[in-house]
């Protein structure tokens, strides 16, 4: 039960800021301030909702870690133990970064007025940095340790842009017939950054996998590696979807009536697959890799 709650909290507290980051960075780099402002206002209820569910999930992670460390459910509500976990463990330090910036992100989205997409992207990037310096990425010492954590943060940010930006692509595709003059250049910019994000996500993912598995090696019996293989298969499917979107359907948008519905459908598939990949990471990140 606790293990399932831990996976659920890890999933929600990571996926929500990933979507906020990707959507906000997409808007911040859209090159069309007017459309970005309009979409920012339109997406605000969703971004608020995401930050709001991420906060309790992130805060609960400390209680769950305290219960795991001490083998005691009572530790979840014991202020002294929670304080010790927060202050005297590496997990606690990373949790404080994640919790602090998730709280600030919530405030930024709930306070009156519209925050700029650049600010929201920065705040959610800080949340994701807290996520990225924790767990298996914290297993190395010294310079390799810092490089491992930096690589993991880069992996999360690239992946976050990949799936989060689709939160902006979807409304653009649904208003394509009326707004394709504005949406076209925005999509072209997304395509450029999207290539970087997909390539970055795959390369940092490969490096991360090597860094984590280099000690224990490969094993068919490792549950960690079985779930990791499933995640790799999902990322492969997402890459194929991204390539077919960009190089098959987008060039046919003007000439083929099937292109727009196909793109909308495939973007939804990509969001679902990306979310599933994050769920798998939330799951196998709690398991020993070897």
């Amino acid at each position, binding site marked *: 039960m606790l293990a399932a709650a831990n996976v659920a909290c890890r999933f929600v507290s990571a996926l929500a800021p990933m979507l906020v980051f990707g959507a906000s960075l997409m808007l911040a780099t859209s090159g069309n301030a007017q459309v970005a402002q309009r979409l920012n206002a339109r997406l605000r209820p969703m971004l608020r909702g995401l930050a709001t569910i991420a906060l309790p999930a992130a805060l609960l992670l400390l209680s769950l870690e305290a219960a795991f460390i001490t083998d005691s459910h009572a530790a979840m509500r014991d202020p002294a133990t929670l304080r010790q*976990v927060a202050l005297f463990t*590496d*997990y606690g330090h990373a949790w404080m970064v994640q919790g602090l910036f998730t709280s600030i992100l919530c405030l930024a989205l709930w306070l009156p007025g519209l925050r700029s997409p650049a600010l929201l992207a920065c705040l959610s990037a800080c949340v994701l940095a807290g996520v990225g310096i924790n767990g298996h990425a914290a*297993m190395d010492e*010294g*310079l390799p340790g810092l490089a491992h954590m930096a690589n993991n943060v880069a992996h999360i940010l690239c992946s976050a842009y990949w799936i989060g930006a689709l939160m902006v692509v979807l409304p653009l595709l649904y208003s394509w017939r009326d707004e394709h003059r504005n949406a076209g250049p925005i999509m072209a910019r997304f395509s450029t950054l999207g290539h970087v994000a997909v390539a970055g996500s795959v390369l940092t993912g490969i490096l991360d996998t090597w*860094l984590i598995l*280099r*000690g224990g090696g490969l094993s068919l019996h490792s549950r960690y590696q079985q779930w990791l293989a499933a995640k790799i298969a999902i990322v492969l499917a997402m890459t194929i979807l991204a390539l077919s979107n960009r190089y098959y359907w987008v060039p046919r948008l003007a000439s083929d009536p099937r292109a727009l519905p196909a793109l909308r459908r495939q973007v939804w598939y990509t969001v679902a697959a990306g979310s599933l990949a994050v769920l798998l990471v939330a799951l196998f990140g709690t398991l020993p*890799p070897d």
Partner: protein
Amino acid sequence: MKKTLLACAVALLLPQLAWAHAHLKHAVPANQSTVTSPTAIRGDYTEGLNIAFSSMTVAGADGKALDLGKAALVPGNDKAMDLAMSKPLPAGHYTVTWHALSKDGHKTEGKWSFTVK
């Protein structure tokens, strides 16, 4: 700048062994060994430890834990913890039970035993 980049690349590419989760790599006294009374009992792990939630206890053949205080990190080495002996251990069979919280937030535990002649 070039040197820093090179150092980063070398640090990343070196096939240095590391395991996620802290596993016991080396124990003093060694598992199943027979020794004269040790001055310290020490465990070396594959990963850095968070000592606030890591521990070592020693029990005699009757299963009763000895009062040896709390294990501490070996100075300058956060992958090792030890228990200093304030007085010699009497002859007999001992079991060390350890719990380790690694820096990646995962918990491992285990035992090893030795005999004092």
